């Protein structure tokens, strides 16, 4: 299994954000993580990305811990993780260096792939929210990771842009990427997601296949 969680607990002081999360997740599948605010969705994603150290339990990503597997993980957070004062290409050039990617060709390729223009010279701070989300996605996939962790990728994005982003994610899943999306807009992913994971009070309480959910509706 590319991603395995075992009795994962994450505590912040006395508050337990994750309370024993177990699960196995297949490759080339599209997982949508749903739940109310405070259910532990973002903490789970941050733990998978290696940003939140588990208090107890283990995370195995392609047989390694998240830090060791960092080249195989692409992470898109709710904030853009981009420098507002630099253009999209300048941002990606910098992040490419962190992954030992040299030259502009890969940066330009991913910018075009998310539907933006690499020649756009204005700073990211002047982008619309939709453009910023796309550029954020471009940063997350820059190093061609096998596993994508996306936190609220459609928030504050208009329906048309969100649908275009869903199309991009579907193409990535079809190309063999394992995708985890945390969202409150599950309807956007009907017919695309392979599995819906429900979280409540720091636990996975239900896993429904995409087909079952679509049929039920």
């Amino acid at each position, binding site marked *: 299994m590319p991603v395995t969680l075992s009795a994962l607990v994450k505590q912040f002081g006395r508050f337990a954000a994750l309370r024993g999360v177990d699960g196995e997740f297949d490759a080339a599948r599209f997982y949508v993580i749903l739940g109310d605010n405070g259910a532990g969705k973002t903490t789970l994603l941050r733990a998978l990305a290696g940003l939140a150290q588990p208090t107890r339990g283990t995370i195995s990503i392609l047989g390694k811990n998240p830090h060791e597997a960092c080249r195989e993980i692409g992470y898109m957070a709710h904030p853009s993780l981009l*420098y507002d004062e630099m253009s999209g290409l300048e941002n990606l050039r910098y992040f490419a260096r962190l992954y*030992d990617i040299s030259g502009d060709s890969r940066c330009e390729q991913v910018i075009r792939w998310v539907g933006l223009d690499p020649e756009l010279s204005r700073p990211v701070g002047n982008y619309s929210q939709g453009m910023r989300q796309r550029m954020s996605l471009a940063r997350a996939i820059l190093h061609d990771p096998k596993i994508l962790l996306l936190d609220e990728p459609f928030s504050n994005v208009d329906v048309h842009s969100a649908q275009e982003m869903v199309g991009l994610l579907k193409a990535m899943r079809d190309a063999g990427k394992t995708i985890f999306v945390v969202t409150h807009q599950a309807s956007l992913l009907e017919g695309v997601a392979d599995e819906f994971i429900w979280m409540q009070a720091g636990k996975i309480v239900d896993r429904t296949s995409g087909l079952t959910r679509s049929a039920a509706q």
Partner: protein
Amino acid sequence: MSSLRSITVATLTKDIRLEWRSKDALNSMLFFSLLVVVIFSFSFDPNAEESREIAGGLIWVAFLFAAVVALNQTWARELRNQVLDAYRVSPAPATALFLAKALGNFILVSLLEALMAPLFVIFYNLRALGPAWQLIPVALLGTWALVVNGTFFAAMSLRTRSREIMLPLLLFPISIPAVQSMVEATRIILAGDGSARFWIVLLLTYDVVFTTACLGLFETVLQAE
């Protein structure tokens, strides 16, 4: 090693580009230092001999306070849009980020010193009676002592609620040996009062010890939640 060097250079270049565009840190530091020079020159009216005795203290305390402005800006930029998380999830070494930030601050504070030193000379009518060239190693080693600890403690106080207050509270006490060395060395060189060698060697030792400690501990600070 090549990865460490290339990521350090890429991060340093990015930081210089961002500072060049915003000039946040440089403008604040310049205005602050200028105010210190002017206010002190109005407050005291020393003769040439008195100036040589007090100038070391005035200059280095002014630069220490001004450096805090730059040091606070260093990491603030990484907190906007949580960009630091993008670095934390990458395979890039933590030491590259630390070195780039420390070097960036060193360049900024050195630039400030180069711009402000002539003003100090004019306002306080300074003329070195000792070997003036020794002020160069004092400035270089002293500036590195301030920024290496400052960069480290600014990162440590990143996640605290009142980080702008925390930084001086952490930095100033640990900088006392360095500041004392800088002030004494400067006083000796300006007054021509013996050799500043002891204080320069002390500064060098301080730099080596604290640079090693900061490099060794920075990974823990970066990955702290």
